[in-house]
């Protein structure tokens, strides 16, 4: 990935809404052909960042260059080469799925015949060909989401910005979207996406940043982040009671460190089985024990002290 041309370059990028700072001086570089992710909890500033990259929201401070151009002065030229799937769908629910694509294509100056052909291909691509003539208000939320993704590709963009592309999709549809995005990447399209899902980030992203409170808490490939910020394995312990603090004290010294969650305790250790054996050796008899590989969720927990997806 090194040495690739930077398509997106942000230095000290800031977005303020009045007194409130949503994006607090971030440095980001996205190279040609890579899949880059923003991972973070609600309110981290992911969408605010995406909207600045999409040239629809002006930065309050810092530098930003997209495709080597200045978003403030060359917005339309940049947007012509971007595909955007916003967090909130903004399809026209009165029009059919197909009409949504053909009318949108026209905003990019795409000739009518080409627009129709591409609309059909894209509906096929997201497996909505059989619903081409359905009005959008008759489509399910997940179908609309796929239609929005299809719409973002109508101008054959160099960079696709996907703000939580798979939120609200059932597992099957998520896997379809992942597979499609993976295909796009293989064709050389640069992907920038935000997500709450670690598995999505691990599957799709070559590189990602963990955002929290408008700042970047860590950056790297999923593998690197896990190596740097977590142990190889994790032991999840449940005790069938709500007060877990007493157990935490008794577990001290097992593994490298320990994380106390409302419903369970996480033990970080390179050898999970050995750590679990040590727990039993101390006569703590947990009601549930699970040894698993460390994930980005653990990275996030370590960096911010909070879980990414509320499990309660």
């Amino acid at each position, binding site marked *: 990935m090194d040495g690739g041309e930077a398509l997106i370059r942000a230095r000290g990028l800031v977005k303020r*809404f009045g007194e409130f700072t949503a994006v607090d001086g971030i440095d980001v570089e996205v190279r040609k052909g890579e899949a880059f992710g923003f991972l973070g909890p609600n309110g981290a500033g992911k969408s605010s960042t995406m909207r600045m990259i*999409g040239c*629809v*929201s*002006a930065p309050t401070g810092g530098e930003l260059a997209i495709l080597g151009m200045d978003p403030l002065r060359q917005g*339309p*030229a940049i*947007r*012509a080469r*971007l595909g*955007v799937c*916003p967090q*909130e*769908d*903004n*399809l*026209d*629910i*009165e*029009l059919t799925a197909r*009409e949504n694509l*053909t*009318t*949108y294509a*026209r*905003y*990019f*100056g795409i000739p009518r015949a080409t627009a129709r052909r591409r609309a059909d291909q894209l509906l096929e691509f997201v497996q909505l060909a059989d619903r081409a003539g359905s009005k959008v208000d008759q489509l399910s939320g997940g179908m609309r989401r796929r239609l929005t993704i299809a*719409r973002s590709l109508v*101008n054959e963009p160099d960079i696709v910005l996907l703000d939580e592309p798979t939120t609200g999709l059932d597992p099957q549809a998520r896997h379809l979207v992942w597979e499609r995005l993976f295909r796009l990447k293989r064709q050389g399209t640069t992907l920038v996406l935000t997500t709450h899902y670690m598995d999505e980030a691990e599957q799709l992203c070559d590189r990602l940043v963990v955002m929290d409170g408008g700042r970047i808490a860590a950056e790297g490939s999923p593998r690197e982040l896990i190596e740097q910020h977590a142990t190889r394995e994790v032991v999840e312990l449940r005790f069938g009671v709500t007060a877990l603090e007493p157990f935490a004290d008794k577990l001290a010294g097992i593994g490298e460190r320990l994380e106390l969650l409302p419903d369970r305790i996480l033990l970080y250790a390179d050898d999970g089985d050995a750590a679990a054996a040590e727990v039993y050796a101390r006569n703590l008899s947990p009601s549930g024990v699970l040894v698993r590989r460390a994930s980005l969720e653990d990275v996030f927990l370590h960096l911010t002290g909070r879980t990414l997806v509320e499990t309660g």
Partner: protein
Amino acid sequence: MAHPSVAVLEYQLVGYRRFWRGTVFSSFVMPVLFFLGMGLAVGEYVDRGGGLDLPYQQFIGAGLVAFTGVQIAMIESSFPVLGNFKWQRIYYGMAATPLRVGDMIAGQLGYIGFRIAVAAAAFLLVMIPFGAVTSAWAGLAPLVAVLVGLAVAAPMFAFSATIESANLQAVMFRFALLPMVLFSGVFFPVGQLPELLRPLAYALPLWHGVELCRAAVLGIGTAWPVPVHLGYLGLWVGVGFVLAMARFRRRLAT
């Protein structure tokens, strides 16, 4: 390549193809009802009194052509614009493309202009058998209706882009549209207004449209020189457009 605003106009027309039937009542039946109801009933009464130097049906018909434009303009530039920001978020989708706010506004105004032209032309056809069209210049009346409609729609775009709830639009219909329609010489000459209210008629766009429509449909003169009426309406369109662009930009940035 066509101007980008044409793509926005096309988008609007794709929707229109679907629901045009629902618009017939509001844009066409209303003025026809006024024309028949007021024209026949009130007309007989007015004509007996001899207060006007032309038949009342002719007087009101020409005025209603301009009214048609304003009515469609008000409806199409209020709720649909607010909805495109607030509920369907259509403008946010457009803003992510190479379109500029000027293209979005121009395209949608173009659509409104089209709607007005069609409705005004249809209404003119209804007027003909009643002898309410007496000049070949009447062919220009739909264009005047478009102009006065856009003079109302453009500033309404700015207003609709500013507000958060449709309640304020209802207020606008009651306290701006209704008085404007009553006091702009559609149903009775502005000269009948109390001295104090007359400047209001001159200031609002509709009266200028009514004067021009009457001149076209009946082949008579206008109160002020034609270029002044045209220029004043053009000013409303231009200022409204600039305001709308600023409001759209601000709203889209949030």
